């Protein structure tokens, strides 16, 4: 009886350039502006540094990475909790930072939303908030990690081991760095391993209805699926 030919174990596909996992540590700076009502918040958003817009939209997602409900940025949370302006809070909350590849565009969107709300509700502009909004900014310092991936197995291993701050850095913060609606992970999968579909599936992971640990699990599930298919 002839035996079936032995299929050689699949060799992992090697990336042309390895993926270096980094992380980012941040230090909060207290800004000069603070807002005691919505009109003042609008003014602060118009004039504050880019780093402050970044802090209250992108960075706050990392700081509250364990929460998967509630308002998705500091402006919407303040509009709800301190100003009791539920409609505005909902509108601000619907801003999806993944659609923005520049702070200028994000700032413009915030200004437009608040301006149009105040046009319809002029009394809301000067009504004192229960507590002020303090404008902050973050200084980010990139920290290398010992994890490097040259193939999917090593990539999955790195994903399991790095801190949640590294996931944030590559998956969320990267959008502004790359100026693209994608992440470092997707770019590497696409450019280095030609895994276009996997890269696209990564980009569809919802960061607002999941914790960052949940995001890590979703990424891993996609990568493990690719490994099993290889």
């Amino acid at each position, binding site marked *: 009886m002839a035996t079936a030919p032995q299929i050689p174990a699949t060799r992992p596909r090697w990336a042309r350039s390895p993926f270096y996992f980094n992380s980012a*540590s941040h*230090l909060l*700076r207290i800004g000069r502006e603070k807002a005691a009502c919505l009109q003042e918040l609008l003014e602060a958003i118009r004039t504050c540094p880019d780093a402050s817009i970044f802090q209250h939209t992108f960075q706050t997602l990392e700081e*509250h990475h364990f929460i998967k409900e509630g308002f998705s940025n500091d402006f919407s949370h303040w509009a709800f909790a301190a100003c009791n302006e539920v409609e505005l809070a909902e509108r601000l909350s619907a801003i999806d930072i993944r659609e923005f590849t520049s702070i200028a565009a994000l700032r413009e969107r915030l200004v437009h939303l608040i301006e149009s709300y105040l046009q319809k509700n002029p009394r809301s502009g000067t009504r004192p908030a229960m507590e002020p909004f303090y404008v902050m900014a973050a200084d*980010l*310092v990139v*920290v290398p*990690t010992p994890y490097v991936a040259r193939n999917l197995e090593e990539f999955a291993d790195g994903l399991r081991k790095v*801190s949640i701050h*590294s996931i944030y850095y590559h998956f969320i913060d990267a959008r502004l760095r790359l100026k693209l609606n994608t992440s470092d992970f997707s770019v590497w999968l696409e450019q280095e391993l030609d895994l276009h579909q996997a890269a696209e599936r990564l980009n569809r992971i919802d960061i607002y209805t999941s914790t960052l640990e949940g995001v890590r699990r979703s990424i891993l599930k996609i990568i493990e699926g690719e490994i099993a298919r290889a």
Partner: protein
Amino acid sequence: MKENEDKDKAVATDQPESGQELKTQEPSTSGPPPGQKERRFRTSELPPHFIERRKHPRISTEPPPPPAPPRLADYAAIIGMPELDEIRFLARHLQGKTVKMVNSTAVGGGVAEILNRLIPLLNELEIPTRWEVITGGNDFFEVTKGFHNALHGGDYNLTRQIQDIFMAYNEQNRQRMLFTEDLFVIHDPQPVGLIRSRSDTRGRWIWRCHIDLSNPHAGVWDFLKPMVEQYDAAIFSAPAFTRQLAIPQYLFYPSIDPLSEKNRELEESFINKVCDDFGIDRSRPVITQISRFDRLKDPVGVIEAYKLVKKYVDCQLVLAGGGATDDPEGAVVLQEVIDAAGDDPDVIILNLPPWSALEINALQRASTVIVQKSLKEGFGLTVTEGLWKQKPVVAGAVGGIPTQIVHKLTGTLVHSVEGCAYQIRYLLTHPEFAAQLGKNGREHAKENFLITVNLKRWLLLFQILLGMAKPSKTI
């Protein structure tokens, strides 16, 4: 099923809420340890030894020997190796750089407690850090106590003589100390005048302000501000505590040490022993406020809230704290608390000595809900301790508490006795929601309020001020 029904009946009251059947369940965050038989009884059925312990709690009379400070590696189990690796990486570039930290007291007080933990960790990371304490006569410390109260908004008569006393002792300390380090961290207003040595050094100077400057006495602040503005950076504990300054201001939340006596994990048997010593019945919900006996902590308001809760849920209230032995006003407040409790045996009032960290830890861990109903507050580290122990926390929306409690996500914020009572009732009758708050609260504390996070902030600030790290070009 029958057993569960009986269980509910024992804890629940006879009064349904808003016409609905009140489903009171055993909160998941407390209760007897696995395998231990449950004891359930109403107050009137309390065995005599509980009553006796409540009248005469067993409170330790001698401080235990202090434990050895933890090593950095000991935190790996809590924060994970990747986080620890990031700290080590940040420290690597700073190895050999020297730091001097100066404050006004070596023992007692929150600052000394923080430095006692932080400095060994910096030294372990090979960043030689020296801690010096300023000295002064009674006249100096009377002035600095006056400044402290004035900076919190109290009245003060700032005379020329007072300014001279303050500056003379700062000058005396300046002459006594050597300023050869790369970084100088001056804590709080007392030693702020050491900045006059700045021109003799090449180091960077940081002013760490631990107090709330949101409403300072104008004269005292105007006197201190020109000195503060000579520093390279200032650090505050909450955005609300700051003033407009011409120098960069950073936010360092105060932190707790998860390995300290007050916060480390405890054996269930020890928690039971402490409860037994104080006459706490672990079969019924325990509401706890840990605070010194001070009107600003509103202990009487907590008793009023408890009385409203008690109409619906059979529970106990523990008010534990210190300050009633060495502070005459504390003794008066303690008496007010005893009077407000009346003859309710389920209000357990404990005036604990300063060495009761382990007992406080056990009380917090035995609690079903932790309350901090302050009317005015600094940062509120007792809230942080409750969050870290994964407890649902109900707290007044004052001082640094809203920074820690995102309403209904990491705890609940209240503004009145009635609000406090409602939130406690809700948490006692919705254990799943209480457990979720506890879980989120612990993550929030882990992410922002642990000593390891604080250590990382120091390393980042040192790198930035020494020009060794440039913030990312992301934006």
